[in-house]
């Protein structure tokens, strides 16, 4: 028997952390919300296949702290998906820059894929509607990352690590109004299965 994929959600205090948990659960993933103070060893013991770093109120543009997220990014050999604050922290951790947005985005936005053949966006059209809620954004991509998507007012909407299965999204794939959100989660889950 094939056991279910196990993906935990690291709670950085986001309004939609629980939505991420729900989306994974609805897609038959074995999932749990855990505090961002959890020790990496504790996560590792659970034999997880992947990790989601949730968003949260911390202003990554102003501070460089997000619980133990740095430790996870340093040690993980499984896929990690950073969302909003999780994505911004990922960028900072790998040497990128995060600043308060000149034009913060809230609600409906058109996402423009710049690299359509990445497996992470398989089945997602070049232009699609996504929902946002951010005060800060990544303004300078880390050297080891590749840009995958942009919007009119935020140039770094999606990025991936060149060598590791780490992805960052400024928008929120977990909310109902992001049209291809579930598809993106399915793609991430498929990566975690490998």
């Amino acid at each position, binding site marked *: 028997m094939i056991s279910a994929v196990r993906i935990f959600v690291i709670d950085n205090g*986001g309004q939609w952390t629980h939505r991420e948990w729900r989306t994974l659960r609805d897609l038959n993933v074995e999932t749990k919300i855990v505090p961002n103070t959890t020790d990496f060893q504790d996560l590792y013991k659970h034999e997880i296949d992947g990790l989601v770093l949730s968003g949260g*109120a911390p202003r990554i543009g102003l501070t460089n702290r997000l619980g133990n997220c740095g430790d996870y990014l340093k040690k993980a050999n499984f896929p990690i998906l950073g969302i909003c604050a999780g994505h911004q922290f990922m960028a900072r951790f790998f040497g990128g820059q995060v600043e308060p947005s000149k034009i913060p985005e809230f*609600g409906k936005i058109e996402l423009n894929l710049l690299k359509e053949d990445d497996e992470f966006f398989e089945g997602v059209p070049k232009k699609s509607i996504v929902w946002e809620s951010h005060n800060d954004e990544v303004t300078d991509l880390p050297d080891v990352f590749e840009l995958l998507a942009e919007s009119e007012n935020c140039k770094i909407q999606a990025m991936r690590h060149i060598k590791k299965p780490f992805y960052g999204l400024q928008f929120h794939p977990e909310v*109902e109004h992001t049209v291809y959100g579930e598809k993106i989660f399915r793609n991430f889950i498929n990566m975690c299965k490998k």
Partner: protein
Amino acid sequence: MFNAQEFITKTIQILKNEIKEKALIAFSGGVDSTVTAVLVHKAVGNQLIAVHVDTGYMRKNESIEVKKMMEELSLNYRLVDASQDFYDSLKGVKDPEKKRKIIGGKFIKIFEKVADEEKIEYLVQGTIAPDWIESGDNLRDTIKSHHNVGGLPDIMKLKLVEPLRDLYKDEVRKLARELGLRISERQPFPGPGLAIRIIGEATPERTEIVREACFIVEKEIEDSVEKGLMEKPWQYFAVLLPVKTVGVHGDKRAYGNIVAVRAVQSIDAMTCAYSDIPQKVLDNISTKITNNLGDKINRIVYDITNKPPSTVEWE
């Protein structure tokens, strides 16, 4: 995917093991508390007492309807009319978070009083995920204090039971349908009620105005949905603004308040888009409200913001 039948069977079993003494459920008559009441009732029968509080901030005829409902479900129930008490405690209060906290605190006081009198050990609530998420905690910012979370004292005498804590409204509706409840599609109504649909002080007089305006919005939209003119919104209501503007009534100057109409589409309340209401329907709503509340309201606006950046309710 969420399996309603499985959830019901499992939860009734858990509740049977958990609730050993008499329990009280805070019963508003909405989908969340009704589903919770039915589950607990199935688990422990008449050991459960449903308490409905008329806060004075209920919608038109609401508490009468809720009473009917509790009878229909054969619940062992108590009705508490606390209108005057609520009005008094909100006197002079304008801050939305203060309103919510005072109301939450009042609810708990009433429940504790009933519990004391009837030797009840457990407080059951229909709390769902967005309630505690938006109320905030050590990690999360407080967007708004939901009455069933933000009003709870630090030290609780009653043991709290919240079987729907991890669910969203669409999942609770699935449970309601599975349980055959006629209120399964009822629109959400916040615990603090009309008090948070009155910007500024929620006086009894202003409550009457917003109660009538909400009634008109609900009726017009429900009629239009029935006629197939529009999709049923997730939530639809009126908000009374403390802003006065000039109008003209029968060749005379008028100076009255503004009512905002709000209607949104959503699945789980965590993100919402404002509803695309046909102009004809908006027109009917506007005319009916201004005709019915002539000397008080002379301007109607429609709220065209999504969540985020706004929230569904204005406070």
